[in-house]
């Protein structure tokens, strides 16, 4: 048990660092919301190494902490919508067992963006934001794929006995 808490703390710190690094990278394509999604790599790893509850805890803690440290109320609201929707989809796809880590991560990337755009539509009460949907779908699937490949390689490199943290 104590072992597990140490790992959760470590992964939360890791996710927070990924958030910070991402906030430093000027990754801008003229479309709001296009991001690398580095933190999703951590969430995917926790999901596969530890489990659903643990990944949800890390994701939630990461969003709140990163929001207070680098963002504001709006960025928390945004990340929460994207983070929770993408998390839900990833858990369902993982349970369904028809996709590899890469597919799960791609779906996560896509639905992160979908969640954010839905919140943005609700906040500004304007549906024409759906205009941004195509580029955000494409960017979500590409970044999700890169993150998924990274996560797959990390999982592969771990010694067989450590692929499940109890």
């Amino acid at each position, binding site marked *: 048990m104590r072992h597990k808490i140490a790992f959760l703390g470590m992964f939360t710190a890791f996710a927070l660092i990924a958030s910070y690094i991402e906030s430093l990278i000027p990754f801008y394509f003229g479309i709001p919301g296009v991001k690398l999604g580095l933190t999703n790599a951590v969430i995917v790893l926790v999901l596969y190494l530890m489990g659903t509850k643990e990944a949800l805890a890390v994701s939630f803690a990461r969003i709140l902490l990163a929001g207070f440290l680098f963002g504001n109320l709006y960025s928390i609201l945004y990340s929460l919508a994207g983070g929770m929707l993408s998390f839900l989809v990833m858990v369902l796809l993982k349970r369904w067992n028809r996709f590899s880590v890469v597919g799960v991560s*791609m779906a996560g990337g896509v639905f992160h963006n979908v969640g954010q755009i839905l919140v943005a539509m609700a906040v*500004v009460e304007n549906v*024409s934001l759906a205009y941004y949907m*195509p580029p955000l779908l494409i960017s979500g*699937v590409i970044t999700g794929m890169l993150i998924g490949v990274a996560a797959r390689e990390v999982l592969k490199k771990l010694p067989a006995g450590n692929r499940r943290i109890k």
Partner: protein
Amino acid sequence: MKKNDWMLLAAVIVIAAGLYVVNTWIIHKPGKEVVVTVEGKLYGTYPLNEDAVIDIQGTNRLEIRDGKADMVWADCPDKLCVHQKAIQRNGETIVCLPNQVVAEVKGDGNTDGSEADGVDAVAH
């Protein structure tokens, strides 16, 4: 990557392409005016063919030049709306989320909140 992963990738690309086609069908024409809303309520409507600088409740500044509208200043910390490129086509928007300001290009004089109607714009 499993076969299903590739199918997921293909499905997302097809959906995005479909949405893009739908968007450009509706949006491909240059608009006539820019409609500014704050918190979902109409703030003002400005023609795109007259150069102007519009102050939006002191929090944002929208500049119209050469038939394009561009957010040139905002008091929010992230400045995402300022970084966004200028808009000129029907349906394009610039959004400043912290201030709940939306600037949207519309095709005709229809500002009653319904979507700008490209067909009507031609008929006029």
